[in-house]
């Protein structure tokens, strides 16, 4: 994957000048992605923000994309690396289609392919700085998995990246059940996204929800959640706090 023709006289990637050749920190990042399995397939939600450090710089970034006929990929982390991954997957799906036989790569295969890519990049100390969520449905089998930038991968009935793991997963653990209807699934995702909006400083109030079923993938128009800021705890939040006066 990483065919860089290094003209540096460096024999190790870890010397100071070789640092310009590998990813050390992310620049433009997306925040959490949350996804769950429901009756007909997978529902996934992500906001449309691209932060540049602490600045909420880009507000129209689509962080979820369809892969082939059967899969949906959502990413948090470095946006440019996400775009690179989309290019790899484009090639993968293209070659899969070129066989022109009755076989196609399903979500499980794409997930494992991504795991290999992420893990191999990590081993070269040049990671793709993303946490990915891969969901899909093929021949009635629903699949939802995640891969981190160091290649950790697993499948579950509901997954999240970044802050979503801390704020959304507990809600999902309580309230997720098999065969959620579409409306209930969306409500549950919105509940998670609302908490993230209140508590994650890199979240913005402009999100999309994508669904993938046997029929295909659809992604909603961007919309915003209703929020309520009049809770009494939000007035004079530091009054009486330890260390305040």
């Amino acid at each position, binding site marked *: 994957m990483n065919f860089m023709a290094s003209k540096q006289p460096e024999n190790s990637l870890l010397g100071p000048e070789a640092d310009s050749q590998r990813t050390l920190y992310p620049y433009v990042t997306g925040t959490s992605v949350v996804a769950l399995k429901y009756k007909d397939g997978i529902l996934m939600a992500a906001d449309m923000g691209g932060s540049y450090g602490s600045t909420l710089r880009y507000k129209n970034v689509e962080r979820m994309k369809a892969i082939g006929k059967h899969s949906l990929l959502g990413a948090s982390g470095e946006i440019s690396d996400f775009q690179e991954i989309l290019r790899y997957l484009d090639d993968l799906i293209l070659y899969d289609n070129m066989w022109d036989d009755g*076989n196609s790569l399903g979500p499980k295969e794409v997930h494992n*392919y991504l795991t*290999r890519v992420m893990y191999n990049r990590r081993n070269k100390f040049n990671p793709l700085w993303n946490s990915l969520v891969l969901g899909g449905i093929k021949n009635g089998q629903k699949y939802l998995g995640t891969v981190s930038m160091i290649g950790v991968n697993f499948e579950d009935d509901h997954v999240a990246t970044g802050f979503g793991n801390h704020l959304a997963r507990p809600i999902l653990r309580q309230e997720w059940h098999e065969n959620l209807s579409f409306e209930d699934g969306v409500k549950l995702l919105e509940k998670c996204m609302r908490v993230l909006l209140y508590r994650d400083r890199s979240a913005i109030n402009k999100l999309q929800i994508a669904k993938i079923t046997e029929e295909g993938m659809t992604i909603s128009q961007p919309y915003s959640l209703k929020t309520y800021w009049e809770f009494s705890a939000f007035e004079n939040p530091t009054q009486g706090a330890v260390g305040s006066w």
Partner: protein
Amino acid sequence: MFRNQYDTDVTTWSPAGRLFQVEYAMEAMKQGSAAIGLRSKTHVVLGCVNKANSELSSHQKKIFKVDDHIGLAIAGLTADGRVLSRYMRNECINYNFTYESPLPVGRLVVQLADKAQVCTQRSWKRPYGVGLLVAGLDESGAHLYYNCPSGNYFEYQAFAIGSRSQAAKTYLERRFENFTDSSRDDLVKDAITAIRETLQGETLKSSICTIAVVGVGEPFHILDQGTVQQIIDTFEIAAEQEGPAAEPDAATGRDTAAEQGTAADQGGSTDEGVAPMDI
């Protein structure tokens, strides 16, 4: 086929547009002992006739497992067959590692055919002298493919290759319409019968034939000698009992059934003593 001035290397066309070296490679395949394959919607059965150099040696291995869902039978230069099966096993393992999913047999067969084609277009190579019957499963069900040294591949409902395969082909042609809906056990019986056709009167016993099965929910495996012998024995009994109203070859079956019956029994017991290397 006659020797002529256009058959020295594979990269020379004849004026009639033939590549003689490739055709000679197909001849090599026809010299090997027979291998047959047949499939239903859910299962594929491969069978082959085992030859041994002498009574002292072990039988030539002609059926290879490539993965849980793919296997093959070869006819021709067994060394070439071994090398190709190693390539196929490698491809399956690599695909499984990357995608955690079995390699669809249709794609493996195309890769194999492309590999064979390369050898028909390089002056420093020679075509593989082996025909392969590849049995496998993929998303669309059970498949049987035939790969030949020319680099062509075809999908079949049933096929036979190697020496005296025509007899098996004739038998299969008569019966193939029923195969799609056959049960797994009937398919195995048909495979054994097809093998018997290639033996042309030689006694059929489990030591000279090998049967392998792959199907939905059944990983590729070679049936053990005891099982095969049991099935053969049921034929002989059936042939004896059915009498002239049954299949056309029941008549010969009946005459020789008595000797085959006893020969099979003897064959069974002595073989159990002999065999560490069989199959």
